[in-house]
């Protein structure tokens, strides 16, 4: 169990090392001890816009931040807070605001999808502001390279799940645009009653989980009945 979690982290880490975009949180790896100390001392802060010269003296060394028990991710500091907090504070974004944040996300998607990577976890919690107020995409735990066609893993945040993920017919980076559509609406509309196109009433609600399990083609009839019984009991 621990091993798979570790492998997942390493996969995420490798993926992040390959990525370099002004609106993606950067992951650094120090070859020299000096670089390591510098980056740590500066509270893991790094200005993403001017990071293009980092590769000159930062090279890949996979063991650098892995000890027996933990794996350390060294990343740029984003002191601006989550977009979700901002949304809670303002209740609702104007279309101009939404356009700005959506624009940054579109730029990131353009870059990711060029490399055939599906991000798969777009939500306001995963957009973090840097010190100047530009939003940066974080958390690549669910990102996956789909260069060999479609992928079938069931993942994402229920509120932003595209129908093809739920039906299990195989999906690719197209799911990111579904989430973007959901988000554009969510942002401009936080205050109105139906503020998300497909709002999940509660993450743990039985009805939603049931609907998800029902639609999974891999679940056999027997196990489905068992799951349903468990859900109803709660």
């Amino acid at each position, binding site marked *: 169990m621990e091993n798979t979690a570790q492998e997942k982290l390493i996969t995420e880490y490798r993926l992040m090392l390959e990525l370099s975009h002004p609106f993606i949180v950067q992951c650094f790896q120090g070859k020299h001890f000096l670089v390591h100390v510098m980056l740590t001392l500066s509270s893991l802060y790094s*200005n993403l816009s001017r990071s293009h010269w980092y590769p000159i*003296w930062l090279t890949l060394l996979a063991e650098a931040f892995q000890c027996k028990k933990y794996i350390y991710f060294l990343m740029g500091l984003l*002191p*601006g807070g989550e977009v979700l907090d901002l949304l809670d504070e303002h209740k609702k974004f104007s279309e101009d605001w939404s356009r700005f944040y959506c*624009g940054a996300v579109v730029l990131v998607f*353009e870059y990711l999808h060029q490399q055939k990577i599906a991000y798969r976890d777009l939500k306001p919690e995963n957009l973090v502001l840097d*010190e100047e107020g530009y939003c940066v995409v974080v958390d690549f735990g669910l990102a996956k390279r789909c260069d060999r066609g479609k992928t079938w893993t069931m993942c994402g945040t229920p509120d932003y799940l595209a129908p093809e993920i739920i039906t299990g017919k195989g999906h690719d980076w*197209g799911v990111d645009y579904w989430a973007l559509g959901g988000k*554009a609406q969510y942002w401009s509309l936080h205050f109105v009653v139906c503020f998300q196109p*497909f709002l999940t009433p509660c993450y743990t609600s039985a009805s939603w989980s049931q609907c998800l399990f029902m639609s999974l083609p891999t679940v056999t009839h027997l196990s489905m009945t068992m799951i349903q019984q468990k859900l109803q009991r709660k």
Partner: protein
Amino acid sequence: MKGTYDIPDNFSRALIDLVSRLLSPQAQRLGRTQGGVRKIRKHAWFEGFNWQGLLDREIKVPHVPKLGNLEKVSIFVHGMLTLWSFYLT
């Protein structure tokens, strides 16, 4: 599989169009169809939006976060260390 959603009255026409095109089946979804993400960038809702300016971080930010002292210090320290590393290399 079917689903319904409401679009509120205060949305501009361009935004309604964009949202409905994004929330459509896999084969017709904007961004995934021919033209890819460029279709989104050229959509009417983004008309006049300064894409290059955003990428170069030159356009006005809607919200500037308030930084605590710790963040200010860390940014300053990083700047100093960056200068120092340039001096060393």
